[in-house]
């Protein structure tokens, strides 16, 4: 009994440093954001004025905030759907099909993931260049060069999708590797049985592969949605700075602009609080709608 007690004490003492670090670097800053969002404060001085929920009230009538909200939601939906679909399909092809140079494809797909946002921005700036870029040169090759160049980063109706393409390119490889790992653990015998029953490849994909790696998909989906909010900020800052005229502004880039450029730190933190709640709610929602009975083999 005494020994048991001592062990418990030892364990709790061991967790103390981690707990303190967690409290100092995670809990305290997070709670602090909630507190600061109730102040009118520029960020550097001692003049803080408590304004209650004023910042949130202003936020709801701020058209530019809603524009950044729309852009973020659009990016989350488009990028998630396309990335997940592409990652699943490529993973299935790489695990199920007899391909040569599999390792080579893996590396090629994975490389974008290890590049920093600045490098990705530089690559896509070159691809999207209106006069010498890869895309426009390709288009003019097919059209004979008579049409006006597409302004991938200048046309306000197109530019958000240009950002989406860069985000998809960056993420597909990583999730493909995750799914390949999951798919490799699906027993070969199931596919054999299915093919004996006459199920084609597509049928096998939907009735065997997807259900068996469903837990994996669920987890990655939540991760991905949260990380999209961050990655979109990095890419937007490096590629368009939120422009032209605010058309690619996302949650965090707008938050930065308000908190720093516009000296409204409190207001910026109010945006932070909404982003926090939004991500939380979205993860909860995704978790809820993707809930299935798990299949154990």
């Amino acid at each position, binding site marked *: 009994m005494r020994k048991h007690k001592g062990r418990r004490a030892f364990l709790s003492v061991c967790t103390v*440093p981690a707990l303190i670090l967690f409290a100092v670097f995670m809990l305290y800053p997070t709670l602090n954001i909630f507190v600061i969002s109730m102040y009118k404060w520029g960020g550097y001085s001692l003049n803080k004025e408590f304004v209650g929920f004023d910042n949130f009230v202003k936020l709801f009538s701020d058209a530019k905030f809603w524009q950044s909200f729309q852009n973020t939601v659009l990016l989350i939906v488009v990028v998630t759907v396309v990335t997940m679909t592409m990652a699943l399909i490529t993973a299935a092809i790489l695990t199920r099909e007899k391909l040569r140079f599999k390792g080579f494809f893996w590396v090629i797909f994975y490389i974008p993931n290890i590049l920093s946002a600045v490098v990705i921005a530089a690559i896509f700036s070159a691809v999207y260049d209106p006069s010498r870029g890869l895309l426009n040169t390709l288009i003019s090759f097919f059209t004979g060069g008579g049409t*006006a160049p597409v302004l991938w980063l200048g046309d306000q109706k197109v530019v958000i999708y240009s950002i989406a393409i860069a985000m998809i390119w960056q993420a597909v490889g990583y999730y493909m590797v995750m799914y390949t790992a999951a798919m490799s653990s699906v027993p070969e015998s199931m596919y054999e049985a299915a093919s004996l029953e006459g199920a084609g490849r597509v049928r096998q994909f939907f009735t065997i592969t997807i259900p068996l790696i469903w837990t994996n998909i669920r987890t990655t989906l939540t991760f991905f949605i949260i990380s999209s909010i961050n990655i979109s900020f990095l890419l937007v800052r490096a590629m368009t700075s939120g422009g032209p005229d605010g058309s690619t502004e996302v949650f965090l880039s707008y938050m930065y602009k308000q908190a720093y*450029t516009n000296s409204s730190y409190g207001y910026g933190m109010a945006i932070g609080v909404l982003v926090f709640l939004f991500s939380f709610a979205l993860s909860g929602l995704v978790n809820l709608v993707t809930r299935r009975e798990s299949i154990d083999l």
Partner: protein
Amino acid sequence: MKRFFTLLITLVLTVSLFASCGLRDDDKDADGKTVLKVAVLESAYGKKMWEDVAAAYEADHQDIKIELTAEKNLEDVIGSKMKSGDYPDVVHLATGREAGLTETMVRENSLADISDILDEKVFGEEKTVKEKLIDGFTDTAATHPYGDDKMYMAPMFYGPCGLFYNAALFAEKNWSLPTTWDEMWELGQKAEVENIALFTYPTAGYFDSLIYALLCETGGVDFYNDCMQYKEGVWDDKNAREALDIVARLASYTEPTTVANANNDNYLKNQQLVLDNKALFMPNGTWVSGEMADAPRAEGFKWGFMALPAIESDKDRYSYTYFEQIWVPENADHKDEAKDFIAYLYSDKAVKIFAESGAIQPIQGVSDMLEGENKLFYSIYDTGAKAVMGGFAATNPVEGVSMVDTLFGTVNSIVSGDKTVDEWQEAIGKASDSLRKALKK
């Protein structure tokens, strides 16, 4: 015993963690010298000139040791320290940066009043700072943000802004430089025939100097000041509309790919258009020749620089003068020493060091020190153009409202046709109305 040690180690680790966070610099060094913390932005001029000036100051002031921080991302370096109460004594950081640190300090009344620098005698010289400075630099909103007689920011490196072009191209085509906007549009037609666009711009932010000068041309200096003071109804005025219409007309002559590259990542491609003879004019500042020094260019390329064309031939032409500011935080530890250091920056010795790196201060007689392209750039006011200075008056922060985004950022939408001039004018009026209520009294 074991348990005691475990506890002890945990405690030591935890305490050392906090201790390392809380360490603060002492303000005297080992020799008993006062440590003056000087934080400067490392801009295109480089940081060597600052190191040299700091060394010269230390040589002349044996009791002071300068701790120099020169960084390209100065806001990131000093910003977090300032949040925790550790302030530099002198900061050289202009307004108009994305991180908005200087603006925030102004809006939060966190700058020290440094008016007495003006009457201080420059080290080793007979003249006061005020006598050495060129007139007009110390009575603008950029030095006196609250509109009273107190100076909170001192003027440092300055440069005229205007339209840059390839002088060799004009000579080759035998085109004369437009002196009025009507001539500008005629030139636009002529250039179009040759497949050259009349206009391009690096990013929409560069329209600040152009629109400020344009407001002076359409409505005069008083009207410009009314705009800067957010006076009621000033943006409904016909002079304001005329300025916006000129920008919209320029937009229609803008090189078609400009807006796609008008961001921080790609703006050099727009500047390159002028070097490649694909566009005739761009609004810019004197730093552009240095910024594009290594870029390829059309054969025989020669920088040309002019003020904005006039509204009519008998009216004035204007060029906006941009200058960087230096200031002292209200919470700095050594405000008096800081002011003394700033006064020293106007000494002949310091001015010379700065000028060697191309950084020109608004000092009487500085034009004699200029060489090469700088001589052309800085002579713009000698050839009849009038100078505009300052900018929008300081306000308390208004959440979600930015005059810079509304007035300049919208130009991208005017060029791409996503917004009309009417919408633009209305939005500026609205922003001006909200900011007027927040004006610093």
